[in-house]
């Protein structure tokens, strides 16, 4: 985990609080970054995480963007020992 934040003022359809992190994976020797929600608020820089699939990361009908304009599933990051 490179960095993280917990957002306490979230837009419509987004869980509150919403802990987000930028993580860096090693992909065939090259670092690849991803940004996403965390499964817990108890995170720290340097944590090792694994992806956990979530079918709907926010309520697609509550925000300004049209439901059909994009996908809403994805992965949350879960710290591992």
């Amino acid at each position, binding site marked *: 985990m*490179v*960095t*993280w*934040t*917990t*957002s*306490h*003022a*979230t*837009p*419509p*359809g*987004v*869980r509150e609080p*919403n802990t*987000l*992190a*930028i993580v860096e994976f090693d992909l065939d020797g090259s670092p690849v*970054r*991803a*940004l*996403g*929600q965390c499964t817990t608020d108890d995170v720290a*820089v340097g944590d090792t995480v694994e992806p956990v699939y979530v079918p709907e*990361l*926010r309520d697609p009908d509550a*925000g*300004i*963007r049209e439901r059909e*304009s*994009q*996908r*809403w*599933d*994805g992965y949350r990051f879960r710290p591992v020992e």
Partner: protein
Amino acid sequence: MTRFGVRDGWVMDLLAEAGGDCIADTGIGPDDIEHLYVSNMASGEFEGQTGVPNALAHDLGAIPAYTQRVDQTSSSGAAGIYAAWQSVASGASDLTLLVGGEKMTHRTTGQATDVIASLTHPAEYKHGVTLPSFAGLTARHYLDRYDAPREALGHVAVKNHRNGVDNPNAQFRKEITLETALSSPMVADPLRLYDFCPVTDGAAALAMVPAEHAHSYADTFARVTGIAGATDTHVVHERADPTHMGAVAESGREAFGMSGHDHADVDVVELHDMFTILELMQLEALGFEEPGEAWEAAMDGRTARDGELPVNTSGGLKSKGHPLGASGVAQVVEVYGQLLDEAGDRQVDADVGLTCNVGGFGNCVTTTGLEASARAMPGPGTPTGPRWTPHPTPEGPPPPPPPPSARTGANPSRRSTSRHRRRRW
């Protein structure tokens, strides 16, 4: 410019107020306007009002001027300045009016945040990523990487609130203490309420003419000496260094190169402090400070109004407010006032100024260099001043340069100091 804050009027009311005031100040006739640009991010999303350039031309009586809306999210204002400058520099227009404005406060904070967050990449939006959450992620990384104290960000907020007290158009005109900033409610950990700009209504306007015509409209004026824009990745977390604003650096390099000025020439700066961390990152990306060292400038007062390089004398977005499409225009209005000794109680000693307006989280940027007319050479792109010459004489000799102001003359040592202050770039 209009007063920024919670306003009763809708976007067209605000645009017409700022545009009308600018027309009155410069003494131009509405039907003399050849191009009319409107900087606005989201009037359709916020209040269902589209077609704002045509509507504003109608309201101002600027028919049949060419009109165009400029949307570059939070940097719409400076993108409008770039468009207006291009219209004059290209010869397409001899008199361009730029009006930037936004009406936001009728929406809840969550709704306004979502409108702004809609600029994010789908991979970010679906996670509920907002601009404030980008700021929290980046601030934590910056503080950790450079071993900077959290208090440094609080000092930015305290400074800009202090400056806003003396700006009659600012949304917040009250000082805050460092303790207040550091104990305010958490918004995006580690950033708290006073690290963020407010949701704001407001508008600002500028008139631009070729420099060789400027004396027909004003005895004193400011000249655009350099202007450039740049773009960074749409996916913010793909950037190699999260603490480096690449588009700020690129636009700054180009604007400095065009202007012929270097950093030591710059006397006053308006930066896009939508979040306190952004003021530090822009100081570094523009080359005023080394990477990882701008927090020291915030803590030791170098960017205060009486410091080596006054930053955000207007109060910045932080205190003055951030009506999206208006902000970049209002930055230049502030520097214009500083260069012409019209900044009132917040006046500093300035002949050369710079503004940096940021869209997204550094996604789109425009940097503008400005110079007071007393030192200006003829060139395109000139915001005109409010002191209209009643009998325009385009071919006549320009008036003599104004005498040294009492401020400059009274304290020549400060000028000398600022010219030789330490700069690292």
